[in-house]
């Protein structure tokens, strides 16, 4: 077995082009995507989104909102410019990511409980920023709706007080304040527990904020995908050896077929782990990943994933007849698992239907496990479920693939 593995390691070393491509792919993707998304180290690195605001209402609520979004912390993320009717023309010139329009009588309609509509004009040339504005305005609409339901009467009274030409009587202001206070106090038990819980979660995950890095995150996602290609290539080597006559030659020797097939799978696991280790070292050197990281847990998770990947590839390759078919089917499976399992898109950003399929991929479990180990300071116990699932998938797929490959390899004799 060792002789077979050593021989394949030397072959990979002497013919490094494909291996280098597999190492370069995650590094390149991480660098590219990391830079595009501002690196994730500091919020300031992400440029503020330009938003135009056309206020046709000029009422209490819109003035209140404009005051709120004028705060410094919002300005870091949103560069809001108030415009008049020229807003649409400026959008056509591509001056901003989105134009938000408060229509006439917006405040009146909202306070009177009538349907009120906010309008968002998106810049079609941009993808992410207009979407962020759109989502933000939707959230705002939901908040305003709830605010109206909760404090509609009190807000109406407040508007009357503000619109009046004379100073309100102290008793009137006091009555209004007491009413607002009573309404909010009634919500204590609904409002405070979630806030407390959020605070506790933040405490537990405190290191995450410090250690999280977009480059590292993308590195994990894309490394997993690269390791699937490594597994495919390692197991697919059987096809190359069949084509060259080497497999036939080995079968005419005392080498057992179980040894030949088993050695390819073990080599795939070993080689996958080596590349994983190499990428981890590069990631640490570039400070995309930050220690401490639980090394035994990471190795175990990586080994279980490599085993599962080789098992799945063995299974796929055992089902096809030619190297070409193996290449096409292997590629489809890798791309399918990678897109559903979070190697291409963050799972949280996927549609619900895709998210439901994610746990059926190897990528999902290994990426989740590495995220916990690398960014969450997790240990083996925290990722035991991920390790167990990958190990089980690895054993089942490898066994099935091994048996089918044995059957397929016997056909070489003919």
């Amino acid at each position, binding site marked *: 077995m060792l*002789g*077979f593995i*050593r*021989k394949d390691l*030397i*072959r990979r070393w*002497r*013919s490094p082009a494909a291996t280098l491509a597999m190492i370069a792919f995650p590094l390149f993707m991480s660098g590219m995507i990391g830079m595009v998304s501002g690196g994730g180290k500091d919020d300031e690195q992400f440029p503020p989104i330009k938003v135009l605001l056309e206020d046709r209402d000029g009422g209490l609520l819109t003035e209140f909102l404009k005051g709120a979004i004028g705060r410094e912390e919002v300005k870091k993320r949103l560069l809001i410019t108030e415009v008049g009717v020229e807003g649409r023309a400026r959008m056509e010139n591509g001056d901003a990511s989105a134009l938000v329009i408060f229509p006439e009588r917006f405040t009146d309609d909202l306070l009177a409980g009538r349907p009120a509509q906010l309008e968002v004009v998106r810049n079609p040339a941009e993808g992410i920023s207009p979407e962020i504005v759109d989502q933000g305005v939707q959230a705002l609409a939901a908040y305003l709706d709830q605010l109206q339901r909760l404090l509609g009467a009190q807000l109406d009274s407040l508007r009357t007080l503000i619109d009046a030409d004379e100073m309100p009587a102290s008793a009137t202001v006091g009555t209004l304040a007491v009413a607002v206070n009573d309404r909010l106090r009634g919500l204590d038990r609904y409002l405070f527990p979630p806030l407390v819980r959020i605070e506790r979660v933040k405490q537990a995950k405190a290191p995450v904020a410090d250690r999280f890095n977009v480059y590292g995150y993308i590195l994990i996602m894309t490394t997993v995908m690269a390791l699937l290609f490594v597994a495919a290539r390692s197991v697919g080597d059987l096809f190359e050896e069949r084509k*060259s*006559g*080497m497999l*036939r*030659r*080995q*079968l*005419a*020797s*005392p*080498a*057992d077929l179980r040894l030949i097939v088993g050695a390819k799978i073990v080599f795939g696991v070993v080689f996958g782990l080596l590349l994983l280790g190499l990428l981890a070292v590069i990631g640490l050197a570039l400070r995309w990943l930050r220690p401490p990281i639980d090394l035994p847990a990471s190795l175990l998770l990586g080994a279980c994933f490599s085993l599962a990947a080789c098992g799945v590839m063995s299974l796929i390759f055992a089902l096809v007849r030619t190297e070409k078919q193996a290449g096409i089917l292997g590629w489809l499976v890798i791309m399918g698992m990678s897109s559903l399992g979070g190697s291409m898109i963050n799972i949280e950003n996927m549609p619900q239907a895709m998210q439901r399929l994610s746990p059926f991929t190897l990528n999902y479990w290994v990426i989740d496990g590495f995220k916990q180990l690398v960014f969450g300071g997790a240990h083996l116990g925290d990722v035991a479920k991920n390790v167990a699932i990958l190990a089980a998938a690895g054993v089942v797929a490898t066994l099935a693939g091994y048996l089918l490959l044995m059957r397929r390899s016997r056909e070489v*004799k*003919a």
Partner: protein
Amino acid sequence: MTDEPHAGTGVPVLEVKGLRKVFGDLVAVDGISFAVREGEIFGFLGPNGAGKTTSISMICGLLTPTEGEILVEGRPARDDPREVKRRLGVVPQEVALYEELSARENLEFWGGIYGLRGAGLRARIATVLDQVGLGERAREPIKNFSGGMKRRLNLAMGLIHDPRLILLDEPTVGIDPQARHNILEVVRDVVRAGRTVLYTTHYLEEAEALCDRLAIIDHGRILAQGTVAELKAQLGEGSLLTLQGGFTAIALGEVVARIDGLTALEVGDGRALLLVARASAGVGHALEALYRADLRIEGVTIKEPSLEDLFLKLTGRELRD
């Protein structure tokens, strides 16, 4: 060094009895029997698709025979296939090597499969590399090797564990005459060192020059076997006339039947192979009689009988067809 074939000792190292292999409707090997004696080169001569490689595959355990028995050094191969594989040195038709490895590394890997380790393995590697003339290139990646050098290393891999019986499946396909000469020399050296060789080829000259005994195989059946002299004798004693012209098979057949000492080995329209018996009045007399018969003969070749002629006589077609 001589090019003369060596005679075996008579003790069979390999015995094949009634071997048959059927793939669906195709009978690839149809009940062949032969024995390879210790210290000889036994040739398996036949065109592509004759059943040579299928036979070799059954002998080295790659294929299970449909019928028949294979004995290696007196033991039935099916009783302990792994042990039989250990005793055989197989050199396949394909150049099956790892291009990224050096000659030494290929041999190290291959020797390891046969259980060779350490100093013993290193000594064998040095021996076989010298044997095939690659001692100087041992550390070089073989992707830099010529086709002939790769063929020689391919042969060396079959010799690494010093097997008593070596199966060579068309080892000289696709290489230049110089490289072919080198390989044939290595094969002769191996036999001189007391090993036994089963050698398949479709090159007549190679078989005739190298092999002590031969089996001529076609369509999965052995048509004739024996020493080269014995096989040629099947054509009869005398000279061969090859005729070409505008005659018909029937007309020529009638004429040949009237001429003493002339035998038609193969006759077709416009082409014929005739044997002029040594005891007859001679080639000149036969030709004179043929011309007198007004057969429109346009070309005549006179030569001594060869294996090609025997193959033509046995199969009705040339080996190179």
